[in-house]
């Protein structure tokens, strides 16, 4: 229903379909109540129109049980419908927020006024995102300057992209095509032109595209090189385990901190640990790690994170 209608956007994913269903439910309810009120106003206003200049209306019944029941009805019925809208919307929101485990991981950096996309195989794109159909894609996004927003209308998703932290977005395209990418958070002069395309291809076309493009190094490899060149390996080694935590298997694991808290080691944690190591000291370690603020750029941080993600325990998957 509503495929390719000129007043309705295309649907490029299953989530898009679910968002549309929720929207149509809400739209139906809104239309119903708007029309109801409009009809009532016209009906009552004409039926009881003033017929002589000195006519007055009949006063309403005083605080009777029926008025209270009426008030209760038109408070509770809307509340019930609103509860449905809330629960349905919240569940969909949680699904939108939680990427599946097997998603391909891409990185996006937004800056005035372009999007830089990095594929794990090493391909880099500007303002374009090529993806294979049927595969869940997870994006890790950050900004180099102001707040932007990565908006894919045909997928019905967006997230603000902030400086100094990571946002996350996932989608799974279920049809071939080219779709819009917009920046949806005002970011300065050329905000309207910070747009691009998402190109969804058949899997074999996508592989050809990957191979055919002049690609750079996969970010995880660049990260491995940085890990050595920035001397991280001096401390984060198995034989110096007393000095610094070993990073094998770190990503996604729960970490116990010195102040008693425990947090999950995600992209944001690793980024913070590089730039501001004193913020979260791992339990049992001294605060001796120096800060790398100013020595690594956003791309390099993402490469290091990608590298740490590859550090899985031996024999593990």
């Amino acid at each position, binding site marked *: 229903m509503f495929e390719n209608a000129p007043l309705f956007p295309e649907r490029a994913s299953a989530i898009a379909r679910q968002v549309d269903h929720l929207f149509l439910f809400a739209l139906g309810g809104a239309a119903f109540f708007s029309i109801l009120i409009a009809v009532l106003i016209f009906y009552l206003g004409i039926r009881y129109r003033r017929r002589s200049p000195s006519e007055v209306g009949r006063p309403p019944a005083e605080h009777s049980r029926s008025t209270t029941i009426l008030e209760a009805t038109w408070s509770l019925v809307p509340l019930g419908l609103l509860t449905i809208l809330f629960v349905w919307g919240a569940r969909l929101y949680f699904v939108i927020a939680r990427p599946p485990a097997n998603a391909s991981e891409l990185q996006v950096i937004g800056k005035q006024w372009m999007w830089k996309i990095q594929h794990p195989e090493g391909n880099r794109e500007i303002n374009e995102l090529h993806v294979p159909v049927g595969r869940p894609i997870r994006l890790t996004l950050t900004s180099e300057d102001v707040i932007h927003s990565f908006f894919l209308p045909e997928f019905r998703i967006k997230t603000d992209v902030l400086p100094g932290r990571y946002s996350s977005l996932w989608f799974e395209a279920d049809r071939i095509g080219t779709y819009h990418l917009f920046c949806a958070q005002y970011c300065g002069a050329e905000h309207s032109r910070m747009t691009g395309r998402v190109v969804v291809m058949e899997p074999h076309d996508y592989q050809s595209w990957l191979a055919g493009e002049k690609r750079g190094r996969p970010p995880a490899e660049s990260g491995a090189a940085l890990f050595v060149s920035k001397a991280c390996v001096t401390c984060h080694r198995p034989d110096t385990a007393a000095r610094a935590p070993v990073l094998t298997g770190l990503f996604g694991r729960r970490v116990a901190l010195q*102040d008693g808290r425990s947090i999950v080691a995600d992209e944001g944690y690793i980024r913070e640990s590089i730039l*501001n190591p*004193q*913020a979260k000291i791992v339990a049992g370690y001294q*605060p001796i790690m120096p800060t790398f603020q100013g020595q690594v750029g956003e791309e390099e941080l993402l490469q290091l994170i990608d590298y740490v993600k590859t550090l899985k325990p031996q024999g593990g998957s």
Partner: protein
Amino acid sequence: MSSEAAAAAAARHATTAPAHQFDSTAQQRETASLGMWVFLVTEMMFFGGLFLAYVVYRAAYPRAFVLGSHELDIVLGTTNTAVLIASSLTMALAVRSAQLGRRRGLVTFLVLTMILGSVFLGIKAYEYHHKYVEGFVPGPYFHYVGAEEPHVRIFFCLYFGLTGLHALHMIIGVGVLAVMLVMGARGRFGPNYYNPIECSGLYWHFVDIVWIFLFPLLYLVGRHT
């Protein structure tokens, strides 16, 4: 004229007719008080924004706040707290003097309150200068060496923001009291009309209470260890 006769004349003048929108002096007095209370609510929300920022950042960076707080001079801070509490006492006594028609008491206590307020501001100015010399004023010349550097800066943003806003209110308060002093010295106030003194007192006590919150939040973070 002898001082008793002058006081009696002043007390007669002190019975003023209410402004034209009011039906009685009682209504005028109650309305003015309510107005001052409502104004103080807005002031609470004004400081409230900064308190909210404080709560958020302290929850996120507790250690930075401990480090920042330890850079403040606790002796001066405690002294200032005592000074302000004393000034609230003298302010309350000033209001009492006005209620009882004691012009000399009113003037004395107003002057004492203003002196104590000025002492507070003087100590604050000294502290600010010290922080400036140490390089703890957020801005291009902020310079803190040590762990937690970026977030200690946030602590000082809140320190200067909160105490600066508070000091501004103190300065205005001292100005208001100066006006009250001039009017009081001329015998404008008495048992029938002391509402402006009462409202000034409310304002002064409010500014004092804000400091009572600021002092532990800024000076006493992590001092129990």
